[in-house]
């Protein structure tokens, strides 16, 4: 069980946490814990209650959805420094995908209800945290659009013979 200051500095070392005032970092990590995970270890389950919000410190996380007949499909991977479990902050607080380890690593995780409580009473903190969250979601949205564009697909000249 690492002490608070270590957690705060780990948070500060990530893209998500970089530039947060130390006061804010301390308030955030007050309810945070470290979680190590291995390959294939599930951190959140699609459709399940999303009770933790996490910042990836190392390793790689995959976001999967289940397609009957095709099994689980990994749609996107999360890079260290980015976040997962945003549903913890947005109603109805259910995970939109299954989050599991792709490469072993460590995440800084926050209890959902405590984090929500904290952001409710600390408007200033909320005002700095939410834009970062939206930036991360925005990137995922853009990435998904490019995946849809299927940019690398071959554009073949139609020639019947």
């Amino acid at each position, binding site marked *: 069980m690492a002490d608070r200051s270590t957690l705060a500095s780990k948070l500060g070392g990530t893209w998500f946490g970089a530039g947060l005032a130390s006061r804010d970092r301390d308030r955030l990590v007050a309810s945070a814990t470290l979680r190590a995970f291995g*390959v294939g270890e599930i951190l959140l389950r699609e459709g399940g209650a999303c009770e933790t919000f996490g910042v990836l410190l190392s390793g790689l996380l995959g976001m999967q959805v289940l397609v009957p007949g095709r099994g689980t499909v990994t749609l996107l991977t999360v890079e260290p420094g980015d976040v997962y479990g945003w549903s913890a902050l947005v109603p109805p607080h259910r995970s939109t995908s299954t989050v599991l380890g792709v490469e072993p690593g460590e995440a800084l995780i926050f209890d959902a209800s405590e984090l929500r409580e904290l952001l409710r009473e600390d408007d200033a903190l909320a005002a700095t945290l939410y834009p970062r969250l939206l930036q991360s979601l925005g990137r995922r949205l853009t990435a998904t659009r490019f995946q849809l564009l299927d940019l690398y697909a071959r554009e073949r000249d139609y020639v019947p013979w």
Partner: protein
Amino acid sequence: MVTSAPPGATFLPRERFDALLDLLREGGRTVIGPMLRDGAVMLDEIATAADLPAGWRDEQAPGHYRLSDGHGPRLFDVVNGPQSWKQLTFPPRLPVATARREEAGGASFAPVPPDPPRLAFLGVRACELAALRVQDRVLAGGTYVDEDYRARREAAIVVAVECTRAGATCFCASMGTGPEVRSGHDLVLTEVDDGFVVSAGSPAGDRLLARLPGPRATAAQIAAASGAVAATRAAMGDDAVATEGLRDRLMDKLDSPRWAEVADRCLACANCTMVCPTCFCTSTNVHSDLDGTVNVAEREWDSCFNVGFAKVAGGNFRPNRSERYRQWLTHKFATWYDQFGTSGCVGCGRCVTWCPVGIDVREELAAIAPPAIPVGRTPPRPAAATTGRFDVATLREVHAETDDTRTLRLTPGDPALLGGLPGQFVMVEQPGFPAFPISASRYGSEDLFLTVRGAGPATAAVLATPIGGEVGLRGPLGRPWPIDRALGRDVVVAAGGIGLAPLRPLIDALLADRDRFGSILLAYGARTPADQLFRDELASWATHGIEVVQIVDRSGPGWSGRVGVVTNLLDQRDFARRPSVAFVCGPERMMQATTRVLRDGGIPAERVFVSLERHMECGIGLCGHCQMGPFFICKDGPVFSLAELGDLFAREGI
């Protein structure tokens, strides 16, 4: 304003005109000049003065041309007809190369050597001389030279005629090209009441003039001549087009609503480009016998107004009429300056007269880009490539990269092709099929590696070459990756799909001098794991001092790596800590997104380099197809810095 006729001018009485023709015909020359045909003045062989349109005059207006006779004895009162002299210096059709399939199964490729006719051009107007000067720059003044054009120019004598009448669509005075004849001619005639004041403009002209019978022109005759030309200038006026700062005014109006309005009238019929004396765009068709044994590549005039002009496999960079009209007008009056240091318009007025629906560039320019204060702009860096040469390479080995992409190991007959640089390309062909551009994916000591994706018959034909079979190559062409810019700096190499192929020789070069560069990151995005190129090499690069990060759009069996797009690999990074350089290659849309992230990450536009794709047909900047704003992708690129491209990158319809 006075004409160039010096005191030493000769006077040629009109009834003695045949003496001049005889002189020009000496040594078997053919005289080509203005002759009446089908209600217009066309360029044809002039046997005697009687073939010239004596007493005829033209009435010209937008979309309107009529001739009438009975206007006295003058021979040159009709100004420009629909044909310009490019008809003779740059023929509408020309066989340029042959490709043969040999009995043995081999192949041979050869250019067609120039064989210019010996001509005398009679009646070249000032605007036409300007047009020839423009052609000289475009076709014979750059890194690459159209040998056939140069030969035809050198074989021709130019006899100019100063205009003593202006057509209603003429605006040479506005473009500063006439009506006075100043240079580019061997002889110049100015027609007065009873004959011509003749003077020379070159040593060859001096020699001809010396042998031309007739008295010295009197001061009165010379005064009459210059007076007539001055009157023409006055009649024409010089305010039809405000050329001052026109280039920048136009380029600032790429979004003008007027483009759409003129497109409603424009037929995209290409007449303006066909009659234009400086338009030089061409396409090449391959004419084969039934068995594809003998194949002749024939070049023909093409036009940026034609729908197929900017097409590449699966797309068209200029699908709309408004974009094509904008391309033409901005090229003529703006980007031409960037490319050739001169206007592409000489004010001959043909595009106005011969537009079937009477669109008048003078009006369009005034409406789109009214006069304003000029702003400077730096022209692009010249191409740093060797001149393309024809060669036959032998196929040694084929390596399947993916289901539709193969890497060919070829031994060129000409070692010069191995002297190419990372990022340069070669034109590849099989007899009977059009040639297409492929960037080298590796330079070996004896072999050239090309990674080709089957996207149509031409690529399929090359991929079908048997081991030991022959492939036609021309190159190396284009501007390479500027590796020197990366010395001592961190390097980001971002590749999408088969975009990794043109980057591989760059990576080879970086590894060869690994210690001269800072950190090297290779971010590679592919469609699926199965679509990755050079899989085993990706692994080995990772063990040789390159951080290799791979990501795929769609996960697949056995894939336990990253899923997403290349930007995901870069958008958390801070490139501002140390000076970095980025080299990016992939689909255009991928490059736009990636370069944006790189710049947000702190790499300046001058140090972000991309390699562009366009419809490349000649590979040496002479056919016009691959034009993008002020650039020819093949000659000025394909590698560009974002700074050079400016806001042209990612703009639609350019």
